[in-house]
């Protein structure tokens, strides 16, 4: 692939106390690429996202971003370098209004196409609710705020952790419909998704995790159903 490598992990491990959740993950994202991460519950998908973004500590050299070691940086330092995470379960700030949630996402003042107006353009429904408390929105609308909040930092790479979790199928369609408009600005994305067919449909490449290890990797179009099932369930 001619595009330069944007993010690379090398033998990445993660633990929660005595429990080891990731075992030597080698993972990469090229510029402009959409990469899907699939796997069963507890396979370590969210842990991988947290380790990359710096919410879990790791050795400096085990995560490279723009070819710079960032493994030992804190999350707030990594976000300044142009990477962000849409966290699992949305996790808006309840004491901030909808618009404040967006504004605080952009408080690093990184230049780029995304602004409060651009987010309202992407998700018009949010504009009518801009002054409401973020907790008063429906689950789907909250997810839109969470995505908009992440976009506001104008990242080069955005990590989506289970954005469809707990949402109605029709809402999920709306949210995924926005994805091309996000990517077309040249942003790269990692999509953690339980729905295998959707994940493969929207991505260029996919990784499958099983019990903290990569069990399958390849271009999304070339992965067969049988191979995915085997990698997913280990059967």
């Amino acid at each position, binding site marked *: 692939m001619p595009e330069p490598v944007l993010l690379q992990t090398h033998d990445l491990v993660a633990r929660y106390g005595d429990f080891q959740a990731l075992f030597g993950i080698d993972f990469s994202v090229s510029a402009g690429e959409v990469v899907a991460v699939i796997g069963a519950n507890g396979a370590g998908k969210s842990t991988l996202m947290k380790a990359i973004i710096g*919410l879990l500590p790791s050795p400096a050299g085990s995560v490279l971003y723009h070819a710079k070691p960032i493994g030992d940086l*804190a*999350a707030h330092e990594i*976000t300044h370098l142009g990477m962000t995470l849409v966290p699992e379960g949305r996790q808006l700030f*309840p004491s901030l209004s909808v618009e*404040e949630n967006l504004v*605080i996402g952009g*408080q690093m003042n990184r230049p780029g196409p995304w602004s409060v107006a651009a987010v309202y353009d992407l998700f018009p429904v949010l504009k009518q609710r801009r002054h409401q408390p973020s907790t008063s929105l429906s689950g789907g609308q909250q997810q839109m705020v969470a995505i908009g909040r992440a976009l506001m930092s104008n990242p080069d790479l955005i990590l989506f952790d289970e954005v469809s979790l707990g949402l109605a199928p029709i809402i999920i369609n709306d949210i995924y419909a926005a994805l091309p408009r996000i990517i077309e600005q040249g942003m790269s994305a990692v999509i953690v998704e339980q729905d295998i067919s959707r994940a493969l449909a929207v991505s260029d490449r996919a990784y499958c995790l099983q019990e903290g290890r990569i069990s399958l990797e390849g271009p999304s179009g070339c992965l067969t159903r049988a191979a995915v099932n085997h990698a997913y369930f280990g059967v």
Partner: protein
Amino acid sequence: MDWLNAIVQGILLGGLYALFAAGLSLIFGVMRLVNVAHGDFIVLAAFLALVVTQSTGLHPFMTFIFVIPLMAGLGYALQRGLLNQTLGHAILPPLLVTFGLSVILQNGLLEIFSADNQKMDAGPIETMSLTVAEGLNIGVMPLAVFVIAIGVITSLQWMFYGTALGRAFRATSDNQQIAQLMGLNNRHIFGLAMALALVVVAIAGIFLGMRTSFDPSVGPGRLIFGFEAVIIGGLGNLWGTLIGGILLGVSQNIGAQINPGWQLLAGHLTFLVVLAVRPRGLFPKVDG
């Protein structure tokens, strides 16, 4: 008329108690930290102001030029150097560390300044008063403190809900992990919150030193008044804190009117009654 006088003076005294309480409320709101040494920091600020007036000849009012930056710097350094290490899920570390600080501050001040009573001389303003009605005089000094308290609370309210810093405070208080994803450094944010709290403490200390006499041992008492004002008003509600302070001041003055020995007792009893009847305070913050 004595009773009306007691109530009016109590309301004004409540302004001072609201100043004691505002800093306490601020740091609890941002980082769920209760600073047991809060009262001792107020006394420290009063002594700093005393030293400044004595060595520069400045009017006590003007000591804020030195005392506010000093206390703010101390707050930031203390939070980043010491208190950030105590934050987590366990309640003991922050409580015991600030308790240790309280003992160190009290005895340090005792060592330097002795147990003597001190008071700053604010000049003629101390005795000036406005006659509102026959037999009802309002001291200019207590009135000034009350107005300053309203000013401080208004500013804090505006800072919290109208500025980027306030937004960062609220976001960090809501969810520390996610706030980091916004590029916010929790440790720095908490440092700023403590710095701001000690700015309020500095103001409280300067006025404490002008309104009443003080000595190194009075810190815990100020902590308790501030704490009672916070709980009476309702946790997390700054204007409630002012009402709490006023209620406390009025109760104390009514108690003193009945029997001079009952002044403090009446304040504590009001607090206990509120706790019994409305455990979340009179004006609890509505979440969400």
